[in-house]
């Protein structure tokens, strides 16, 4: 998915340093962006080790999901001819299953194959095998891989008993777990990708995935259904609750790309079908807010 890289500014910001007193931060470069772990924890060494375990996990996922590595699962899939098949890591298959589900849910607006035939891939979850039934399918998991990695990092932090944490990949896939002690939630901002100083919305979130998709000048997002670039939307954000068993950040990642492309009614419907989902779309005319209002997100902080 050519969700254009917004560098390390995914249009989401984390409150003032004074809001984050007592919160430790660890960074790691992977998947052409920066991953960070913020955690409210007094034992720095323990937190650093937990963060490192998260980063090792991201590196492992990148080895499987990157289309730039010659021996990744995705590259092997991209080299399949009709009738061919390849065995992939269970995490790769899971990520593909989510991507396929989001393709159906968004009527093809979110398409990790960019119109080259995602539905022609048969995903065999028993053997973790991908079968190609047509030639020429080319996957790019850039629009969901970061979210998937962020979900996995969050589970790792919970394993390490660090529930008061926030993780993100390039600030375009953010997952807030429990807030730091004494706070209502993690303070986040949504800002204009063309002017980071222009804050559009302030949110206080806990147990929420927040994804961003956007375009800066001269960048573009392709509509996989038409092959044409999107012209009228500058950025979209999706916030999603985090019920157990749901890869919320991966789903939010996919939804936000779809929100750059879909009609307003379709976005409303998507939000209704995804309990608690909320979307913001930035156009030249201003910010439009869609989706459920009754949820745990506090607007403002």
């Amino acid at each position, binding site marked *: 998915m050519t969700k254009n890289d917004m560098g390390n500014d995914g249009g989401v910001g984390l409150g003032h340093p004074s809001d984050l007193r007592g919160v430790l931060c660890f960074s790691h470069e992977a998947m052409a962006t920066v991953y960070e772990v913020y955690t409210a924890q007094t034992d720095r060494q323990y937190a650093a080790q937990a963060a490192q375990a998260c980063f090792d996990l991201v590196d492992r996922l990148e080895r499987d999901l990157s289309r730039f*590595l010659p*021996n990744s699962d995705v590259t092997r899939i991209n080299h399949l001819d009709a009738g061919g*098949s*390849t065995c992939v890591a269970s995490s790769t298959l899971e990520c593909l299953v989510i991507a396929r589900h989001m393709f159906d849910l968004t009527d093809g607006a979110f398409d990790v194959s*960019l119109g080259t035939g995602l539905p022609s891939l048969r995903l065999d979850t028993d*053997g973790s095998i991908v079968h190609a039934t047509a030639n020429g399918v080319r996957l790019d998991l850039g629009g969901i891989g970061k979210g998937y990695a962020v979900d996995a990092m969050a589970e790792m932090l919970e394993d390490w008993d660090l529930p008061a944490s926030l993780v993100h990949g390039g600030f375009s896939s953010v997952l807030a777990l429990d807030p730091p002690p004494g706070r209502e939630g993690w303070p986040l901002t949504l800002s204009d990708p063309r002017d980071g100083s222009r804050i559009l919305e302030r949110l206080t979130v806990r147990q929420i995935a927040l994804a961003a998709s956007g375009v800066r000048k001269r960048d573009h997002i392709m509509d996989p259904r038409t092959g*044409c670039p999107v012209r009228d939307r500058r950025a979209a954000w999706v916030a999603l609750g985090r019920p157990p068993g749901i890869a919320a950040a991966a789903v939010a990642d996919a939804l936000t790309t779809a929100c750059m492309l879909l009609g307003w009614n379709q976005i409303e419907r998507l939000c209704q079908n995804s309990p608690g989902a909320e979307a913001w779309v930035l156009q030249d005319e201003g910010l439009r807010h869609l989706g459920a209002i009754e949820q745990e997100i506090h607007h403002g902080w």
Partner: protein
Amino acid sequence: MGGDDRPKKLDRRDVLKGLSTLPALGLFGYAWEKQRRYQRARVAEAAAAAPAPADLQVINVALLGAGAQGQVLTDSMLRISGLRFRAVCDIWTEYNQKRVVNSLKRFKHEPNAYEDYREMLDKEKELDAVIIATPDFWHSQHAVDCLEAGKHVYCEKEMSNTLEGARKMVLAQRETGKLLQIGHQRRSNPRYRHCYDKLLNEAHLLGRIVTVYGQWNRGVTPDLGAPDRYAIPPSRLAQYGFRDMHQFRNWRWYKGKGGGPIVDLGSHQIDIYSWFLGANPSHVMASGGNLYYDPKTHEWYDTVMAVYDYDTPLGPAKAYYSTQTTNGSQGYFENFMGDQGTLLISESEINYAGQLYRDPNAPAWDEWVQKGYVTAPQEQETKPKSDSGAIADVRESVAPDQHTVPVTLRDPYHQPHLQNFFDTIRGKATLNCPAAEAYQTAVAVLRVNEAIEARAPLAFKPEDFKC
């Protein structure tokens, strides 16, 4: 909307740009076809993965050691057809053992879980092979006991943290007649094999290799930790030779447990030095030290620089190797420099594609380009004219032609080496890194730590490499 303003349709050819850079069939027929055959074979194997075909002998395997490396090997083995995981053994029953068992169950395997490998060997009578990925100081006992229990063994490198331990493994292999493959996985990597078989031994593209340089640099990382709630009880740690949880997680840094970065990282590449040079070293001198980390928790050297002397069949050579763990600059690679060419290769193709440079005075490589052994030379950048108006500065050598190794590994790094092991069990291959061969690498590598301590060059005798 005017014609020029029409939104540009995404050109499928842009999406497939990667493919268009592949050489046209014909000139590069060999390489292209070779890669296709390799991929088709792998694809066919994967296709057959779920239920093994009737004629494929199912191999019952156990994983002994479910840590980071054990998980890497498991990931690769799950992509190899005809394997049945019967058991997973790890003393960290609270965490790693559970994680690997659960991941295997997702692939419809039903492995039994063990803490004690002896109990596993007693109960799992149907095992054909054991994959050992325990800390180095356990390798010898684990491998010997598995071989004596009649199992084929794939054991991670380094064979052992002591030569005595490594020797016992070679002898046990000989006595039992079972297979013992050591995990120097580059020996089965199709890119390295192409270099060894075609470029060096058939085409002799480098001429006489006189110098070798290689490195593995890594940035600073915190010591490995463990979630508090999954800590192993002290009594169990002591039972298996660990002082505490820190030593259990960071055994590679402790004397008597691992060998430090020169063994963890250097061993892979020094193995390739000797393989490509066709000789074992005659001398080694080395400098190393604990320059950065706390020596209480990092007993082995975090920085090592070593120089080997070789007497190769073509003449003397010197090989430099360095590893450091405080800056990952330029990662890891091996660079072989001959009087006719240079080969710069790494397991990581994304960083070092396998560049080959022909010395301007060497015979033309047209034949090898035609045969597809190397790619056509890349166009050299034309130098901008200097102020004087001269096209080139005569003081600089002419840039050599740059070619590339035209073979790509599409599978995870360890898969071909494991495949070679299982193919050999089925009688369809021979081991690419049998114990007696890996022993020679262990001799060369473990001696580096001795040379650092001795602060003097150490000599190898030819018989040192035999056992």
